[in-house]
């Protein structure tokens, strides 16, 4: 699914301009880093795509969905094509690791046996199978991050939105996470990852989109965290 964002402005209550005339197109299967200083509008941009935020102005088209006009029921089906890794994980603390992943598939009406198989497979893939009976509070930050990623990709989404999936992780775990996202991307999923991690962006080269004060000020294929551009 292609993402086409045109002229999107988001003004929050209190005249806070989070996005200011953003144009961005992301083709199916791309890997995009969203970079920019704190408060520049990265999370807001991702939430516009997941339709948690409705733009004040502008148009957002994802596949055949026009997010301005989408109805509640279609929204549910649209979101099944998305995987979201939240900046703050949002795992459910009273469910086990396994259940945290499985309930996504259940909500989509997948039969129990398939739920078990697919959840197990994904937990293997993110290396959390051996932790499947634990609950999120019993996990380390990096482990929670992996479960959050497992939950985001278990429904084989067309688009994966990852908001700082390596925040607070040590360099080695961060490397593993990006490698994981890269392999997910290699299987055809579009990945948009917001990050502050200069090392990762420079080491694993992909398209870089830089946001500054709600505007896109740089968009480079195979870019670096800080290109030669000086602000």
């Amino acid at each position, binding site marked *: 699914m292609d993402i086409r964002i045109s002229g999107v402005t988001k003004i*929050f209550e209190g005249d806070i301009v989070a996005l200011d005339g953003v144009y961005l197109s992301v083709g199916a299967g791309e890997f995009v880093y969203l970079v920019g200083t704190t408060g520049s509008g990265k999370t807001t941009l991702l*939430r516009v795509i*997941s*339709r*948690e*935020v*409705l733009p004040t102005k502008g148009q957002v088209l994802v596949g055949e969905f026009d997010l301005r006009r989408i109805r*509640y*029921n279609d*929204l*549910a*089906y*649209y*979101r*099944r094509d*998305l995987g*979201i890794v939240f900046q703050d994980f*949002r795992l*459910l603390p009273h469910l086990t690791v396994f259940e945290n992943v499985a*309930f*996504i598939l*259940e*909500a*989509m*009406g*997948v*039969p*129990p046996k398939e*739920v078990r198989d697919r959840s197990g497979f994904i937990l293997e893939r993110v290396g959390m199978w051996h932790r499947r009976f634990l609950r999120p509070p019993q996990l380390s930050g990096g482990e929670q991050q992996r479960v959050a990623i497992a*939950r985001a990709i278990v*429904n084989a989404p067309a688009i994966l939105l990852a908001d700082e999936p390596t925040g607070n992780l040590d360099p080695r775990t961060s490397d593993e996470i990006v490698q994981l996202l890269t392999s997910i991307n290699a299987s055809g999923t579009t990945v948009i990852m917001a990050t502050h991690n200069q090392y990762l962006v420079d080491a694993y080269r992909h398209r870089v989109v830089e946001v500054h004060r709600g505007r896109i000020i740089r968009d480079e294929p195979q870019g670096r965290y800080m290109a030669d551009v000086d602000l």
Partner: protein
Amino acid sequence: MSTFRYLMRDTFRLLFRHWGMSLLTLFSISAVFFLLGASSLLSLNARHLLDNVEGQLTVQAYLKAGTDLAAARDKVQSFGNIVQITSVTPDEALERLKARLGNRAEVVTLLGDNPLPPTLEIRVERASHVPPLARRLVAMAEVDDVVYAGGLAEKLSRLSSFVGRLSMAILVIAIVAAVMVLFNTVRMAVYSRRDEIHVMLQVGATQTYVALPFVLQGMLLGMAGAALAALTLLKGYASAVDVLASTMPFLQFLRDGALLARLGVVLVGAGISLGWIASWLAVVRFIRAAMKPL
């Protein structure tokens, strides 16, 4: 089909995770429905009593001792509006009394000589025919006294309409109370799982899928509460009527099994519907709000 299994599982999880809350709700609901059912029974009985009295559109004329029954009967026959006249001799009246008293018939012997007067029982077509007939009967020389149910029917109909209004008021209060209790319980369940609801909606669960376990929770609690109330009520009523009927044999209590069963069904149906309405109200606004984009 899988969805149905998940739905059932989630509903029972809701019921059992907060089992104390569920029990409390169950008992509150049955108390409310018990009250509702009891007031319905009261008003049904009042109506039943009234129907019985109205069904007997009969005027009894007690004649002076020694009056010729056949002659008096012919005279009355000419009054018009009369459906039927039965003459009852003192002996027949005594037999009837004995039959009414059943196993306590021997008290009749305490009366000594038969004190019962010869009687004409006159059936008319409608209640409105009763008072004029009674007036003409009183005017007759042969007639000692006239007894008719008109006054009683009137009193009973006033009682019945009072009981009807009372049970209306109870109905309204019961509905409000039941909805509030169920609403509160379901809303607490919703609130305790709000994070889950948010995440589910964010990852593509439909509103219906998210709402249904809560709605079913409310419906099941409403149904179980009402069923519990209906069972206790109808069982209690059966024994209460047995006791009352033996101490007050002159009162006719409602014993129509089919009607009572229907009352039970109506109560349970009301429990289910109120559960549905209350839980829908409790969950739908929350989901709408959670779905709303910023």
